C-alpha cells in the first residue's frame, strides 16, 4: 500500500459563542468539525461531500492552515503541521495549496494576473529567482489554457471560467504536492464546469498532484474522486471508494443524499425511489446526542440517541463492496443510484 501523504486524525474545530461586549462570557460553541479522520495518498483524489454547514470548508481551511484546529492531528509526511510555526510551517505550506470557490472574490481586483500568480514567489523566493518569475508565470498561464500574453491584464477582464483558471495557476505556482479545492466549479456555468474539471484532471497527471476535492455536487465528486467521504454536521458518516459509496451506500444519510440528486434522464423519473428527508440540518451549536443524523433518519431508534455510532466497517458486512466504514448502528445496503442505462446510444 502506498504511503499516506496526508493523515488527518480526530480533527476538531469549535468556534466559541460569546455573549456580552465587555465581559465576554462563553455560552457555548459551534461544533463545525467534530472528530474527522481521513488519509490521502500520493496521486489520489479524495472527494468530500456534504450539505452546507456540514464543516467541509472548515476542514479545507485547516488543511492549508488558514484555521487552527481546536484539537486533532494533521500529519503531512509524518509531521504534525498543526504544531508548526515560523519557518517550518512556511515550508509545509508550500506543498499544500488551495483553490477557492468564488473566482470573483478570491482574486485581488487591483493586481494584474501576473502579480496574482507570481505572488507566491514573493513569499517563497527559493522556488523562482526574481529574473525568472515572469517566464514562470507565463508558463503557468499556458499550462492552465490561458494566453501567456494576458499577463498584464486585470481579473475583471476575464470570465468566470478564466478566472478560476487563474486561481488554479496561482495554486500551482509553488509546485505543491497537494491541492485543496473548495467547490472549485460550483460558481461556473455548466458548459464551463466541464472545461475546468478536465483541466484539473489533466494537471493531476502532469504534475503528480493529490487533490482534496470538496463539493456539494455528488455527480462531479464521483467523476473526479478515487475515494469519497460523506460529511454530516461536522463528522464523516461514510467513506469508501467511489463505487462503494455510490453503488453500495450503507449509511441512511448517504442513501438519502444520493436519491435526492436529480438525474438528467426523464426515463428514470418513474422507477426511481426517492428518499425525501424531513426537516433541516440541526444547528451545529447544539447537535443531537448520539447519532447526529437521527433527527432526520427513518431508521432511528432509542439506541441512536444514546450511543454515538463509530465510523467503522459494519459487522454485518465483513466482505464485499458494502464492507467500508459507515457510522450507523443499522447500516444496510440499499441501491439508490440506478444502474447505468443499457443504451448508451448517444
Amino acid at each position: 500500500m502506498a504511503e499516506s501523504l496526508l493523515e488527518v486524525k480526530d480533527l476538531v474545530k469549535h468556534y466559541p459563542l460569546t455573549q456580552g461586549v465587555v465581559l465576554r462570557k462563553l455560552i457555548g460553541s459551534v461544533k463545525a468539525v467534530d472528530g474527522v479522520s481521513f488519509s490521502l495518498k500520493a496521486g489520489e483524489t479524495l472527494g468530500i461531500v456534504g450539505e452546507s454547514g456540514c464543516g467541509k470548508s472548515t476542514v479545507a481551511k485547516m488543511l492549508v492552515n488558514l484555521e487552527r484546529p481546536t484539537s486533532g492531528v494533521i500529519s503531512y509526511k509524518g509531521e504534525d503541521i498543526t504544531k508548526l510555526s515560523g519557518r517550518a510551517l512556511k515550508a509545509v505550506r508550500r506543498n499544500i495549496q488551495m483553490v477557492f470557490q468564488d473566482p470573483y472574490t478570491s482574486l485581488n481586483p487591483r493586481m494584474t494576473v501576473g502579480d496574482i500568480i507570481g505572488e507566491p514567489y514573493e513569499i517563497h523566493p527559493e522556488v523562482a529567482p526574481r529574473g525568472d518569475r515572469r517566464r514562470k508565470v507565463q508558463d503557468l498561464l499556458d499550462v492552465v489554457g490561458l494566453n501567456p500574453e494576458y499577463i498584464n491584464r486585470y481579473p475583471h477582464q476575464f470570465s468566470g471560467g478564466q478566472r478560476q483558471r487563474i486561481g488554479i495557476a496561482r495554486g500551482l505556482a509553488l509546485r505543491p504536492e497537494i491541492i485543496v479545492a473548495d467547490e472549485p466549479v460550483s460558481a461556473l456555468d455548466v458548459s464551463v464546469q466541464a472545461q475546468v474539471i478536465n483541466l484539473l484532471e489533466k494537471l493531476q497527471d502532469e504534475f503528480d498532484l493529490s487533490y482534496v476535492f470538496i463539493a456539494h455536487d455528488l455527480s462531479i465528486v464521483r467523476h473526479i474522486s478515487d475515494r469519497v467521504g460523506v460529511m454530516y454536521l461536522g463528522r464523516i458518516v461514510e467513506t469508501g471508494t467511489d463505487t462503494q459509496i455510490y453503488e453500495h451506500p450503507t449509511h441512511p444519510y448517504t442513501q438519502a443524499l444520493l436519491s435526492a440528486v436529480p438525474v438528467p434522464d426523464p426515463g428514470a423519473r418513474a422507477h426511481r425511489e426517492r428518499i425525501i428527508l424531513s426537516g433541516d440540518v440541526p444547528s451545529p451549536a447544539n447537535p443531537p446526542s448520539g447519532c447526529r443524523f437521527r433527527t432526520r433518519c427513518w431508521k432511528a431508534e432509542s439506541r441512536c440517541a444514546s450511543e454515538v455510532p463509530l465510523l467503522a466497517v459494519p459487522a454485518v458486512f465483513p466482505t464485499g463492496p458494502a464492507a467500508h466504514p459507515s457510522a450507523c448502528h443499522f447500516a444496510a445496503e440499499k441501491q439508490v443510484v440506478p444502474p447505468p442505462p443499457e443504451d448508451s446510444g448517444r
Partner: protein
Amino acid sequence: MLLEVRDLHVEFKTRDGVAKAVNGVDYSVDEGETLAVLGESGSGKSVTAQAVMGILDSPPGRIAGGEILFKGEDLLKMKEERRRKIRGAEMAMIFQDALSSLNPVLSVGAQLGEMYEVHRGMSRKDSRAKAVELMDRVKIPAAKERVGDYPHQFSGGMRQRIMIAMALALEPSLIIADEPTTALDVTVQAQVMDLLAELQRELNMGLILITHDLGVVADVADKIAVMYAGRIVEAAPVHEIYRAPAHPYTRGLLDSIPRLDQKGQELYAIKGLPPNLLAIPPGCAFNPRCPMARAVCRTDVPPLAPVSEERTSACFFWKECLHG
C-alpha cells in the same frame, strides 16, 4: 393557451452600446403544464420571464418588440392598472434567493397577509388567518406559532416555502419559478421541488421553470426550451430532448455534465465562452463554439424550424445532430 410569448425582443442600454438580451423568443404554456427554460447565465431566460411578469428594469431595459398573450390578451398593450391586477393574482413569480426577496423587517405573516389585504380587501385579522392557512399548505411545521417570525428566523428551505406560499396566495393560473432551488442543498431541493410539483397538480397551474440544471428539468418538466444568446435554439418534449438532442448546443450541454450513475472518462467540454451580448456573432450565435459549424452558419441566422410535430430546432444541420 394560457400564456403565449411571440417574437419577444428585449434590449438593455448600456454605456458600451445596446445589449440584445432577448432576440425573438416564442414559447407557450398551458394549464397544468410545466415548461422548463434552460440556459446558462446571460442566455436571456430570466429577462424573458421578467418581461412576462412586467417587472423588467426599464430603463435600462426596453421591450423592443413582440407580444405576450395571457389568456388571449396582450399584456404589453394593457393599461398598467389592469396589468397590476393580473400580476400577483393571475400570475406570480418565485425568485431564487428567498432571503433577499423577502422584507427583513416585516414578519412573514404580515408579508403573506398583505396579498389578501391589497388584492382582496380583507381585514388584518382575516388576512393573518389566511397566512397561517397558506403556511400549513406549504408544510411549514407549527405554522400558527411561526406566523409572527421574521425571514431570518427560517432556514433556507423554509424561506423558499414561504416564497411559494406567497406566490400561491391568490391561486394564480401561472407561476414562474426562476431558479427556485439553486440556492438550496440537494436534500432540501428535493423537498421543495416535490412540493411545487404537488401544488401545481392540485391547482392545475401552468408552471415556467427557469433553470440551468438539466437534472431538475428531467425530474419535473413536460417540455423544454433551450436558450442561447437570447434565442430559443431547441424546444421539445422532455423525453425526446434527452434521448436525442437536435441542436449541437443541447448535445454539448448533455455531454458535459458528469453523471451520478457513471464514472465517465474525460468530460466533453463545449469550447470557448458564451457570447458577449453587445456583440453577438453574425449568423448562428453558437457558431464559434460549434463542432459542426460550416460557412453558412457564419453568415445566415438559422430559423427555429420544425423537426417533428412537437419539436423545433434552430440549427441548419439538425438532422446530422439528431442522428450523428
